[in-house]
């Protein structure tokens, strides 16, 4: 049913002007391709020729020392920064070809929790969901926040939440259904306690089992179920 229309033999034929595959994107299965990505910051080359293909149901874990360019690679994957060379493809098409459609398939959670101090947890969550094209009902959001361990704190302003709780507010979006197929998470385990780490692992596992793709950076090995495939990319 999910026909992959793009052959993988593209690496040998690079070219910036890639014609978009003439197919409805929905019919192509979730699949993220990094093709010869290079990134230069100032005069320093952070990474070059990063090639990787992540299929539906796979976890891609980036590892590397501080400053190796993990965040830069994640931002490049999302289209926040343009690669120096190379291309990122989603469902066989360059991500720049139809940004809005790609953004509908994507959840990116960066270093900062992206919360407004003056808004409550649930207001923050609603704003983030609407931006991402998710339209949860208030009750769905309440239960998502409860699952994320913020029961009774839904209406507290984000200013009064701890670092870990702020992180949980932005992670709560991941629980909502239907979930976008591609998650890009920058150090998602930071500031989380043991219980929350286990919870996040189970959320990631569920996403992978549902045929989603998760890309994350983490300094610890991610202990997901051995039956799920995990790709590690070292920068």
């Amino acid at each position, binding site marked *: 049913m999910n026909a992959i229309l793009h052959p993988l033999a593209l690496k040998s034929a690079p070219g910036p002007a890639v014609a978009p595959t003439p197919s409805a994107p*929905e019919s192509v299965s979730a699949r993220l391709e990094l093709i010869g990505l290079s990134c230069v910051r100032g005069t320093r080359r952070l990474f070059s020729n990063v090639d990787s293909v992540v299929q539906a149901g796979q976890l891609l874990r980036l590892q590397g020392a501080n400053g190796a360019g993990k965040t830069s690679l994640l931002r490049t994957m999302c289209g926040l920064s343009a690669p120096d060379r190379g291309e990122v493809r989603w469902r066989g098409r360059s991500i720049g070809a*139809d940004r809005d459609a790609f953004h*509908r398939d994507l959840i990116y959670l960066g270093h900062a929790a*992206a919360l407004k101090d003056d*808004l409550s947890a649930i207001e923050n969550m*609603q704003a983030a969901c*609407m*931006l991402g094209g998710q339209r949860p009902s208030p009750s769905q959001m309440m239960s998502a926040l409860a699952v994320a361990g913020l029961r009774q704190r839904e209406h507290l302003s984000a200013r009064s939440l701890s670092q870990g709780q702020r992180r949980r507010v932005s992670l709560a979006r991941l629980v909502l259904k239907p979930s976008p197929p591609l998650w890009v998470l920058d150090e998602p385990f930071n500031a989380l306690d043991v219980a929350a780490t286990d919870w996040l692992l189970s959320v990631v596992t569920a996403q992978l089992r549902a045929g989603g793709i998760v890309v994350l950076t983490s300094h610890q090995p991610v202990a997901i179920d051995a039956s799920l495939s995990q790709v590690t990319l070292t920068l």
Partner: protein
Amino acid sequence: MTPAPTPANGQHTVPSSALDAMRSVFLRDLRLAMRRRADTAAALFFFVIVASLFPLGVGPEPKLLRTMAPGVVWVAALLASMLSLGRLFSDDHQDGTLEQLLLSVCPLPLIVLAKMAAHWLCSGLALTLVAPVLALQFDLPAEAIGVLVVSLLLGTPLLSLIGGIGAALTVGVRGAGVLLSLLVLPLCVPVLIFGAGAVDATLAGLPVGAHYSLLGAMLVLALFAAPFAAAAALRIALE
């Protein structure tokens, strides 16, 4: 899987989720402004105080005050709207929300337009509503006060739109406030000339239609072009 609405080949439609995203940004900014009323109030007080210093400084000569009133009110409005412009995108940049705005399902220029509209409601519109009170201080006739309000209604959205480009260009720059004023104030000169000019024309008994038309034309042009310019600037700023 959501049946995501995809535009047909070559045809760009804005799906309803994009409009929802735009509306939620607009409402979120208004809500933030409500929670931080002090900021809005500070800009208004600044406007009132700057405009009130002039009569105190130049003396209570009614004819002189009436002559300089349009310019003084307009310059004060221009300066007051600069105060809140600096935070249009920099707050979002600091807390990471700006990345989410760039990755939203809505085209970035529309998101930027929503933010500019919210900024105008909290700054430009508020200034316009206070302006008649200031005009009374300068002993402007009722007719001229009406023209002043209309010219501000046409001109203050322009300040938010042009200022938005400057705010986007200076995102993440150290000392952005001063740089922003240096960038934006010269660009606002035409707005100032035609805005204050409209009131001057009424005082001289001339028709004001031409001034309104020019302000309106600039507004339409800026409504179209400024969101694209600001969106491009934001993308560069976040690279």
